[in-house]
């Protein structure tokens, strides 16, 4: 019997829109790997990103246990929560339009470093003169707003994925 993996509403995109999925594995690392989300949960150093808290059966944060090597038994429930404290958590789905001069800059990485938000690239299309990136940004509402205005200050156009809705 596999483990059950749950997320909060704001992180549902992690699990392809599901709030709950089943996954095989005897450690947190194996489970995340099997779900194909290990790289999204972890930073470059292989640690759980600071924005996520992971618990097994509502126990302690795995950081206080064996981290990614924390064992998981069949039938356990693994919960992935957003660690951002206070305020309502929101998820914004956005198109970023880059002009030529900006295409080489690692802007999404910068945003993840500067602000307490989780960024998730859903689509990217870079052409000779123009870049279009579909980005999901999750975090506390005010933090998301600050992150978006930072992106805009860098000369990148930020719009909801609906683009122009006026007809």
């Amino acid at each position, binding site marked *: 019997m596999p483990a059950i993996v749950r997320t909060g509403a704001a992180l549902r995109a992690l699990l392809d*829109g599901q709030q709950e999925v089943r996954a095989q594995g005897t450690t947190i690392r194996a489970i995340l790997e099997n779900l194909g989300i290990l790289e999204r949960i972890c930073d470059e150093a292989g640690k759980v990103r600071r924005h996520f808290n992971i618990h097994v059966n509502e126990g302690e944060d795995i950081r206080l246990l064996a981290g990614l090597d924390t064992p998981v038994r069949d039938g356990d429930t693994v919960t992935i929560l957003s660690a951002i404290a206070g305020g309502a958590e929101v998820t914004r789905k956005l198109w970023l339009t880059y002009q030529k001069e900006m295409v080489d800059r690692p802007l999404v990485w910068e945003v993840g470093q500067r602000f307490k938000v989780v960024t998730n690239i859903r689509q990217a299309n870079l052409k000779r003169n123009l870049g279009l990136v579909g980005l999901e940004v999750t975090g506390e509402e005010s933090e998301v707003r600050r992150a978006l205005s930072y992106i805009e200050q860098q000369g990148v156009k930020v*719009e*909801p*994925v609906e683009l122009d809705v006026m007809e």
Partner: protein
Amino acid sequence: MSFVKGLKCRESGCGRTYPTAPLHICEHCFGKLEVDYDYAAVRSALSREAIARRPPSMWRYRELLPIDGEPTVGLEVGFTPLLRAHNLERALGHAEVYVKNDAVNHPTLSFKDRVVATALSKAKEFGFDTVACATTGNLGNSLASLSRPAGLQCFIFMPADLEQGKIVGTQVYGVHVVGIAGNYDGVNRLCTEIADRYNLAFVNINIRPYYAEGSKTLGFEVLEQLGWQAPKHVVVPMAGGSLITKVEKALREFVQMGLVEDAGTRIHGAQAAGCNPIVAAVKAGEELFRPVVPDTIARSIAIGNPADGYYAIETIRRTGGWAEDASDEEIIEGIRLLAETEGVFTETAGGATVAVTKKLVEQGRIPPDESVVICITGNGLKTQEAVSGHLPGRAIIQPRLADFDALLARQKVPLAQRR
């Protein structure tokens, strides 16, 4: 009986499927969702004879529309005239020109009645009791009108500085009209947030996949009215870019259903020069467009960041079509040309479409012996201010016959006297 399988992501390489629900964006790649049909079932249900027996409205193609039950809103919408435009042919130096005249669509004189009838029939199936849209005019007119007999609560969001005529044409239906102050980006953002928070059917946001399908009926009608034949060329105005993709989809579906033969139809797009992101991308051979800040009298097609622009570019390229734009002067000339040749008074978007057709004929992209259909999508009575200063003056005389005689002589008008 429903022929709808569900929704499907339009992005090639994604194609994820979703149930029939008020969704419009693919959760995975942010691509747009499109209605997916059970074409095998449609094919066995739909024939030329079956269609021809039905009432003359857009609903005669109901199997290819995204509703589960019978239509409930806008039963009289569509089946507008397709004119053989002999006078315009002479003016353009072309042998076979048709005008699809949605300027006389019921009930609000634009092709938007098609998409709204579809959206509201679907919204009722979903159980919504409130509908809304963000509009620059035609869409608001149509939604306000059709929401009333449907018994739906209705919110119309418009920029606060819109022309008076468009506001009146919406207010008269007694719906909630909300003017939004500030810049255009703010209007966009607010409306997406409203659609997120409140339980309403925002026709051009959360039920957009269904709404957009209504545009196909313009294409279906053209094919039927040409005697179940596809034209060699179609010229379509582009605002958000949805209509042009749906005209092409209509053609593809009718070919696939065995209702018309594939004629290799080229689909061409028209924009105003003051708002031409799609045209610029097509001409530059780019797949992506650069958003622009609109500056044109053609307000109904002044969308700087077209939601379906990417797909419009793809449609034009795939069918071997082209895109051109028209300056404000050319748009006014286009309006006058269509009025003076065919007696059809279209709005600025139609003026742009006529002007662009003229250019494409002159460029040889539409050869003079290959049939072309010009899609006229809105009525000139709504945007009179666009042309009012550009028409020939009128003579004012005293109520005396001698004054009229003198006028004829002055203007050298050949009018024979009775014997």
